């Protein structure tokens, strides 16, 4: 099992997580994914990658550091993203997910992925 697959495997075992993927930060293309049916990984990677890039530019323009973690909360769940230097780790969670554990695992994994 590769490092990326092991990372996704660990994240998708967290209660309430519906899927996880690793995207290229510059391109918004999927590098690896483990997603439940009905989640469009290509769209999630492209849109989250774009969001991370825009927020990064916004924070730099505002004179603060780029975000290390994003939590986009919706009615039916959340999108979590942990940007690395070249990759973005994205996790899709349901409303009852263990967000604290997901956040810890993601920050740990993002640091290792780079």
């Amino acid at each position: 099992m590769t490092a990326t697959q092991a990372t996704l495997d660990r994240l998708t075992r967290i209660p309430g997580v519906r899927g996880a993927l690793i995207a290229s930060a510059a391109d918004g293309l999927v590098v690896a994914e483990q997603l439940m049916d009905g989640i469009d990984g290509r769209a999630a990677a492209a849109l989250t990658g774009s969001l991370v890039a825009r927020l990064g530019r916004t924070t730099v323009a505002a004179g603060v550091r780029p975000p290390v973690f994003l939590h986009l909360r919706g009615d039916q769940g959340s999108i979590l993203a942990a940007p690395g230097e070249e990759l973005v780790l994205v996790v899709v969670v349901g409303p009852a997910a263990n967000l604290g554990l997901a956040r810890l695992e993601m920050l740990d994994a993002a640091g290792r992925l780079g």
Partner: protein
Amino acid sequence: MRALEPWVEAPLQSFLAESSARLTLLMTTSGQVVAQHGFGRSLDVMTAAALGAGIVASTEELARLMGAGRFGALVHHGPRQSCLLSAFGTPRGRWIGLVVFGEETSVGIVQLFFDQMVQQLTDAAPREQAPAPKLAENFEHELNASLRALFGR
């Protein structure tokens, strides 16, 4: 943004708004321009259309030789600008999209909304027969009429 046929406008407008593409050209596989956004001169459009159609023809032949069917898209990554070239089927025949985009967007976003535009074009295309091929004697007149429509002059 200008299009020769009105049903092309809404899908293309939606693509442009979502993808942040700098230049977009929709054309037939023979290089006849259907719609354009961002080009300032007709000469640039004609050159890009001819080159784009030629590249697609070359890559499709290359794919055939490799037994790969067809390539879905060709993306040329540049340091400040990139280019996506993709052929797709419509009820009006096979078309080509040429998209130039910069650092303000990503190839993932452009591909995602390009595919969405292709689906919208397929849904919006009138189902009647495509017009008959243009006769050589009318070619210049048709070309000039198309360029006037695409550039408003």
